[in-house]
């Protein structure tokens, strides 16, 4: 990668100017956006790239011989390569599949690998901290195939408890695991899980929806077999997600959705699938969205993923400090508060006896956007013994002023509900 990257901490003030929405005011106040774990905002460069594509190039990809169609195809395939390089895929041009979101990527694996290549009677191992996107497809598969679902537990330190790993891995054919929890912030070191899985002959499906936006990811180093993530959480547009998979697995898998582009030939009585990656891209793909995602990756690379990670670790550390100091007794943080590099910038909170939605509502009036709810992780909520948490999450455009604003607003909420 030859992108020139500045050194030192991110200049948040300068960065914010790149994000039009952060120039907006909410309820007459500066918009303090603390919900990037749900969906991030987009820099002007991403919007410009998509507009420019539509204004100069758009045509359907892959089959047109005329100039703009060739250029559209080129830009789409360049986006695929950029995505692949971003996660250090050995063969970006065949291993990166564009889906509509991370959820479709995981369903693709569940349908195509799970229904056809997962050996009979093999169990599926998930973890208690998965997002619904990495649970429901497997629940559906397990019900259909009559196989067992197991869960790696979450310990009281809010990290996966691997003490029973070997026993749980026995007879397992597929492991679904999140690289970073969207509720706890926990970043899991996958190596023991991957090793145990591969020793058991199981494949590992990693949900990296929260990790890829925030850390430098290397699929070879992770050792996983599939990796799913989503464009809208990494400064890219809605409507696009990514599945990366090892070529030999993808090659062996039958198609999932059927239609144009994923075929070599169609006869009245059968069809022949296309080569990778198109075999898994039925119909017109998210072309402009791929162009936008490419621009988002360019933006992140120009910041440098290591600086992004350092910025978020700093901010998380300051946030824990400030919040505990000012609201210590009133506040509970669901998530690791030590070993901060091994956790992301996601803080799930309980404040006094306030309901998370009431808290978020009062914070909104102060111009602060946090998410309240189960965060699509109901099994984890049950494990934590709550129905909902209030969650603040950080990205490149957040600074210490946002933490201060959050902390001030907690006082307002306390006063409001008395």
């Amino acid at each position, binding site marked *: 990668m030859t992108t020139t990257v500045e050194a030192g901490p991110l200049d948040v003030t300068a960065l914010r100017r790149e994000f039009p929405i952060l120039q907006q005011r909410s*309820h007459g106040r500066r918009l303090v956006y603390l919900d990037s774990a749900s969906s991030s905002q987009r820099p002007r460069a991403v919007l410009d790239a998509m507009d420019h594509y539509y204004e100069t190039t758009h045509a359907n990809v892959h089959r047109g011989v005329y100039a703009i169609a060739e250029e559209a195809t080129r830009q789409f395939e360049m986006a695929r390569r950029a995505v692949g390089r971003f996660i250090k895929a050995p063969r970006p041009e065949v291993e990166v599949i564009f889906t509509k979101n991370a959820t479709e990527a995981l369903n693709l694996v569940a349908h195509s690998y799970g229904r056809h290549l997962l050996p009979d009677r093999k169990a599926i191992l998930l973890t208690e901290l998965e997002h619904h996107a990495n649970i429901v497809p497997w629940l559906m598969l397990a019900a259909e195939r009559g196989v067992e679902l197991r869960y790696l537990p979450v310990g009281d330190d809010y990290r996966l408890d691997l003490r029973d790993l070997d026993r749980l891995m026995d007879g397992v054919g597929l492991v679904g695991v999140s690289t970073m929890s969207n509720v706890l912030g926990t970043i899991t070191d996958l190596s023991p899980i991957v090793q145990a899985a591969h020793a058991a002959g199981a494949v590992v499906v990693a949900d990296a929806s929260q990790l890829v936006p925030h850390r430098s990811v290397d699929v070879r180093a992770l050792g996983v077999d599939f990796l799913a993530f989503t464009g809208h959480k990494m400064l890219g547009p809605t409507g696009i997600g990514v599945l990366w998979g090892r070529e030999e697995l993808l090659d062996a898998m039958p198609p999932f959705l059927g239609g144009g582009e994923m075929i070599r030939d169609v006869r009245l009585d059968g069809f022949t699938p296309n080569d990778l990656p198109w075999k898994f891209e039925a119909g017109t793909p998210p072309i402009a969205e791929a162009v936008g995602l490419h621009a988002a990756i360019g933006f992140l690379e120009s910041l440098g993923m290591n600086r992004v990670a350092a910025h978020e670790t700093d901010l998380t550390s300051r946030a824990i400090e400030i919040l505990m100091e000012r609201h210590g007794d009133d506040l509970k943080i669901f998530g690791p508060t030590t070993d901060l590099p091994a956790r992301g910038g996601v803080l799930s909170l309980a404040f006094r006896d306030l*309901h*998370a*939605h*009431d808290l978020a*509502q*009062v914070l909104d*009036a102060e111009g602060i956007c946090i998410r*309240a*709810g*189960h965060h699509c992780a*109901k099994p984890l*909520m049950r494990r934590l013994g709550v*129905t*909902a948490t209030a969650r603040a999450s950080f990205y490149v455009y957040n600074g210490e002023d946002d933490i201060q604003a959050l902390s001030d607003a907690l006082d307002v909420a306390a006063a*409001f*509900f*008395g």
Partner: protein
Amino acid sequence: MAGLEDLYREIILDHYRSPRNRGELAVPPAHRVEGFNPLCGDEVVVYLEVNDGVLTDLRIAGQGCSISQSSASMMSAAVKGRPVEQARKLIRSFKAMMSIHEHSLGGEDSTEDPEDQSEADTLKPEDLGELAALQGVVKFPVRIKCATLSWNALAQGLDEIAAGVLPLDRT
């Protein structure tokens, strides 16, 4: 833009802090209905007893946000001891008040919800007493479900009793 005071009226905070008719009733003779809000995972439980067409007793259990709790509390105060028909009319009226937003969401020529239209027999918000304080909720669409949660459960409970569903069938 709607302000917080539109949502959290003083009377609402009061019911939230001191909820009325909180508790459970023995089932049977009481009937038990759950209301589940999938948006947040909260659940209210309504216990009701109907005798000779009158809602003789009613209790609220479960948990949820201040809006859902105070709406349930206000509801209990409004319907307890009333004839079932009056309770039904109140439910209709309350839900009509809460559905205003549905229309503005649908745009100029929204397809009207037939339920609202055909029900001429509803009370105006200004005739709903302290329940009118919940009117501000419609400006916060995500919270509408909070306010209607216990009302939907009550409606379901009355329907089930009318249809002769035995409480035991449901547990």
